[in-house]
């Protein structure tokens, strides 16, 4: 069945340097990378960022094709942003004028850099999800957000919710498949008709799915209680997150890149 082929997240299992980095390192690096991207302003700084991205992709051994494929769904947004920037940026050097629009040199350059920025932004964050399993990502987030516990943010609970959600995605997909088959066997039609008709056809699918999800939640809660779950207090972990040499190196590198992009951007390079 087609539904079963959906991969959980977009994780590419592997053992590259990037894969082995601590998830917290990768999260922080991605944030730094995004900040740097917004500080960059012209070819010099963008070339630097491009080098960083290309280097990371090469190190991760994720096929560049998959990264490009990931860009496809956002193509519309990219084109839309480009067109808007192209047509609505005021400037001195007018290149063309038609109907109510004027295209300026500034508009062309702005549109170009905006496209590059969005594509690099998405490629960078994709690299994070491609090289980090959802569990590690959750663990990393929990650990990074830990200080927020002091201001009563339920960090552990949020992380637990997230990991249980991830755990149950394949189970619920399988169940959806089953219900769909059962209803198809009784003449339900999920494929034809316009959007509204198809959405309506999904309703009888959602009701049993929801009921069963609640029953599962109830049973899972009991099973968790049976295994002595009592919240995050006093809990230890099998897998301890630990920063290693490579993590410090990566953090320093990205910090340097961000500073460099900031300086270059400041001087309009």
């Amino acid at each position: 069945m087609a539904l079963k082929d959906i991969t959980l997240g977009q994780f590419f299992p592997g053992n590259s340097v990037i894969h082995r980095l601590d998830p917290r390192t990768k999260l922080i690096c991605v944030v730094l990378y995004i900040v740097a991207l917004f500080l960059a302003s012209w070819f010099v700084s963008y070339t630097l960022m491009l080098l960083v991205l290309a280097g990371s992709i090469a190190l991760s051994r994720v096929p560049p094709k998959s990264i490009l494929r990931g860009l496809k769904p956002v193509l519309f947004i990219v084109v839309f942003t480009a067109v808007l920037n192209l047509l609505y940026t005021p400037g001195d050097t007018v290149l063309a004028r038609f109907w109510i629009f004027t295209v300026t040199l500034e508009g062309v350059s702005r549109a170009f850099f905006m496209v590059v920025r969005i594509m690099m932004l998405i490629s960078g964050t994709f690299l994070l999800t491609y090289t980090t399993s959802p569990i590690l990502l959750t663990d990393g987030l929990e650990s990074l957000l830990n200080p927020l516990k002091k201001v009563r943010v339920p960090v552990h609970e949020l992380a637990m919710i997230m990991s249980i959600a991830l755990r149950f995605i394949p189970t619920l997909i399988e169940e959806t498949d089953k219900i769909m088959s059962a209803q198809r066997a009784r003449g339900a039609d999920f494929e034809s008709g316009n959007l509204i008709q198809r959405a309506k056809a999904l309703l009888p699918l959602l009701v049993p799915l929801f009921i069963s999800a609640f029953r599962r939640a109830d049973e899972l809660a009991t099973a968790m209680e049976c295994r002595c779950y009592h919240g995050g207090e006093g809990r230890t972990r099998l897998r301890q997150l630990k920063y290693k040499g490579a993590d410090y190196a990566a953090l320093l590198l990205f910090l340097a890149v961000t500073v460099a992009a900031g300086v270059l951007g400041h001087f309009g390079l």
Partner: protein
Amino acid sequence: METIIQAEDLHFSYPAVEEGTTPVVLDGVSLEIEEGSFVAVLGHNGCGKSTLAKHMNAILLPSGGTVYVDGIDTRDEDRLLDIRRTVGMVFQNPDNQIVANVVEEDVAFAPENLGVPPDEIRQRVDDALKAVNMYAYREHAPHLLSGGQKQRVAIAGVIAMQPRCVVLDEPTAMLDPIGRKDVLRTIRTLNRERGVTVVLITHHMDEAAQADRLVVMAKGKVIADGAPKAVFSRVEELRKVGLTVPQTTALLWELRREGWDVPLDALSDEECAQALYQLLQ
């Protein structure tokens, strides 16, 4: 032998849905489970066997009577964790009791909750996975395993807690025959080789026949309690409450009714064949 679970005149009814109709689920159950034994609780749907199981680690609290786990009253909220770590529980649907995305992470869940140091968690997880013969799958995603494998992972998740008793509530009800066999073998080894007390809730005669002691329930009461051979030979009583007996016993019973002199307590295929062989001679 020490008693690990003790129920004294246990009554339980769910809160009334309508005025005046309180459905009584358990109606005066008294039961003692000895440490190290393998007890099967057999009964028809709705006889209260699952409800009884849920009283054994304080998931449900009695409406009347008392349940002691290792001498602790299950109403004692301060010692809830002690009760739960003494008596582990495995449920019917393996999908709904697996918490994590990776097999070993799931097995680690209980010791993590108990605050066991990481090194010891690793040890316990490996040990538990080996005990259920799932060590090779430790890094797999649970949703890609078969039903029987998932259920064994769920059992490992409970063993990692190092409980003295494991209660299994119809653990094979959703499994195919192969998965059922694997799970039952795991349960037996658990009992024989590790000395873990096992309470197996089931409605399968052949599963119940493998226990040392068989408790039969009907309408919230214990109606028979003893060695499987002795209990199954009470064919008429069992049939009256809607339970069938194993085919071997059924055959011998029919023969006896026709006036043949055969023993009723030949439960296994071999014993039954032997009895028939002697009869023919």
